């Protein structure tokens, strides 16, 4: 089972690589739209990238729609990994 630190590192590494984000922008409270410059169309790519990185299936649902910051994403992935654990 991955630890939260491992999840954070995997999320950050995957997003930095695929979305060409700078390490200094990867703060837990960074908002995807306002701080990281991503948009709704990027969300589709993000799902693909994270599914590949964690070997899980991310469903489009209400919970995913509420993810606004990196910390929200870490929490969501952590729960998903536990469920699939």
């Amino acid at each position: 089972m991955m630890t939260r630190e491992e999840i954070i590192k995997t999320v950050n590494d995957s997003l930095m690589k695929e979305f060409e984000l700078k390490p200094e922008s990867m703060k837990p409270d960074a908002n995807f739209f306002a701080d990281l410059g991503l948009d709704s169309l990027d969300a589709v790519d993000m799902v693909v990238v994270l599914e590949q990185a964690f070997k899980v299936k991310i469903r489009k649902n209400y919970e995913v729609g509420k993810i606004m910051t990196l910390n929200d994403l870490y929490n969501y992935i952590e729960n998903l990994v536990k469920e699939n654990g």
Partner: protein
Amino acid sequence: MVNVLKKIYAFPFLSAVILWLALPAPFVYVYFFISGFRQNQVRNFLYIQGKAIQFAICAASGFNKKIIKKSAPQKPSILIANHPCTYDTFVFFDFGIKNLVCIAKGWPFKIPFYGKFIKKAGYINSDNKTSEEIIKEVQDKFAQNLHIGIFPEGTRKKEIGRFRSLAFKISIETGADIIPFVIKGLEEMLPPGKYLPKQAPIKYIQLAPISPKQWTTVEAGALRMAQYVKSIIISQL
């Protein structure tokens, strides 16, 4: 002496042409309004506007502008380019491509007159739309034998930025080729945030079409294709 004259010549010429293009817009608008905004007519008007702007850019470059063409695309394709300058939208017209609509964010649609023209010409506003909704609109455009123009960086950048995957997702979903264009020199002449042109040599290059076939079975194929096409463009910069 010739160089000094070229520099003096560039700015007033560019300003005059842009002014000339802005002034007739209300009159053309009235004409289109009366004639019912026929899409072909509006696209032809945008083509003429674009050609005039390209001529102005040529003059501002000191007539140091090169265009490297390949044969015109025969079937509806997705034309993409790097995006160093406001006027990049008009680059495709320099290759004689008239049957074109672009996918753009909402703000160009709010520009007085021009916004209305591009809307009536059939340009696609991507704001608040899912990629599935955009693909559906693109399929309708392809059925009308129109090419789709898109700048995968999304916004103007002096240094080439990340290519978003929308154009490549469309390519994979529809089977349409991607035709990359390379824009060189406009980042020096008119970089983002600058409105006074600086003389610089300009070069536009049309590259060979890229089929989406090899990415259709790859996981995250659109992202991988975006990265590949970006690398092809970078190799020409």
